[in-house]
């Protein structure tokens, strides 16, 4: 078994520098790498490009990096719910590349799986396709989208082991598995680091080969953006 375990978030983020391109898992605040984000704030890396479906909220998730103006460019599909984001974008401080959500996921998966680019129908005929190659297959139009190139991918899993195997819970899975192995170095933080051999090999969502570093995360807040409930009848 090849050991990917590092002792803490500091060791996990070694080598992260300003101007790098970072991938971060999560959908809204669900399944985000909370420990890695907190450490990125501490490290004060600047002018990073972040690939992440959303940009967090004002005081949580990637919103924390936005507050400190550490982000040069965001590549996301949806960036509502964040006033500071809107301010920086409208003032031109922040560069924003909006990408359809399925395209975003597949640009990660393409990088993971060694595909240089792919054709998708999403965005054809819209400003998303401007300047991009388009092509017809069987009477339908597609846009050519290149794979992402990133330096670090930060993902959050529910459970993991020292071999780097990951298991996700509920919808906190989202982009996390697609980002594993899609960057030069993939760093996984887990709620529970379990002994090697305890994860069922049939139910490992991401095999350890896609993960370079894994650590036991701490103090997860797991905030809820829209708490919707019904009353017991």
């Amino acid at each position, binding site marked *: 078994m090849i050991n990917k375990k590092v002792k803490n978030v500091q060791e996990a983020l070694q080598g992260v520098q300003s101007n790098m391109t970072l991938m971060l898992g999560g*959908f*809204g*605040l*669900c*399944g985000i790498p909370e420990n890695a984000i907190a450490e990125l704030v501490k490290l004060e890396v600047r002018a990073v490009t972040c690939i992440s*479906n959303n940009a967090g909220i004002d005081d949580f998730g990637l919103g924390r990096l936005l507050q400190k103006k550490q982000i040069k460019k965001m590549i*996301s*599909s*949806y*960036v*509502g*719910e964040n006033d500071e984001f*809107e301010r920086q*974008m*409208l003032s031109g401080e922040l560069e*924003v590349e*909006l990408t*359809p*959500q*399925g*395209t*975003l*996921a*597949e640009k*990660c*998966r393409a990088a993971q799986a060694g595909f240089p680019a792919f054709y*998708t*129908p*999403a*965005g*054809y*005929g*819209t*400003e*998303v396709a401007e300047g991009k190659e388009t092509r017809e297959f069987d009477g339908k139009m597609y846009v050519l989208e290149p794979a992402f190139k990133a330096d670090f991918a930060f993902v959050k899993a*529910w459970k993991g082991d020292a071999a780097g195997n990951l298991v*996700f*819970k*509920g*919808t*906190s*899975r*989202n*982009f*996390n*598995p*697609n980002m594993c192995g899609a960057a030069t170095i993939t760093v996984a933080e887990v709620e529970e680091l379990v002994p090697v051999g305890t994860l069922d090999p049939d139910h490992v*969502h991401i095999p350890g080969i896609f993960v370079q570093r894994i650590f036991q995360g701490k103090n997860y807040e*797991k*905030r*809820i*953006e*829209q*708490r*919707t*409930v*019904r*009353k*017991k009848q």
Partner: protein
Amino acid sequence: MALDKNGIAQRIAQEVQDGFYVNLGIGIPTLVANYVRTDIEVEFQSENGVLGMGPFPFEGEEDADIINAGKQTITTLPGASFFDSSLSFAMIRGKHVDLTILGAMEVAENGDIANWKIPGKMVKGMGGAMDLVASAENIIVAMMHTNKRGESKLLKQCSLPLTGVGCVTKVVTSLAVLEVKNNQFHLLERAPGVSVEEIQKGTAGTLIVNGEIPEMILS
């Protein structure tokens, strides 16, 4: 009388057929789930990675790890499954989802839709909408017939940046049910008490009125 959001959702729910996998957008579409007949089997897919969504959780039972694409806490029904974003859009792009219901800021008579950006004013992003409209063959738009300033949202041509081209097949608004074909809006049903003239007045795109137009039946 013009329908409110719940009325629109109620009418759209009649379009949901037995055995359908359905993706509901944020806003009015989310309300559709409340009105689907209980004697048919339908499964709701949410693009953030869940199939088989159930109602909101009971107070105190919400789980931060189980949400829908609107970031709302949800529950799942027996037979549900969770999956990653890539597989989720495989369902959508691969045409495995039978019906897509989403909101819009504008719909054009050629089926174009705009719902993600108002240049210089509002840029929230397209989320999964561009993937959905580019692939789905059965797309229903749920929206008010006119905007807050009383201007028609059913146009000859969209003025806002497009989400997808020539993709909308049906529109259910506060005033009417319309089919989009041959570069025209074809009036199918009127909201209860709403006249053809009112609908005509609120429709900037080409409106085709063929014969007697029935009122919606909202049981």
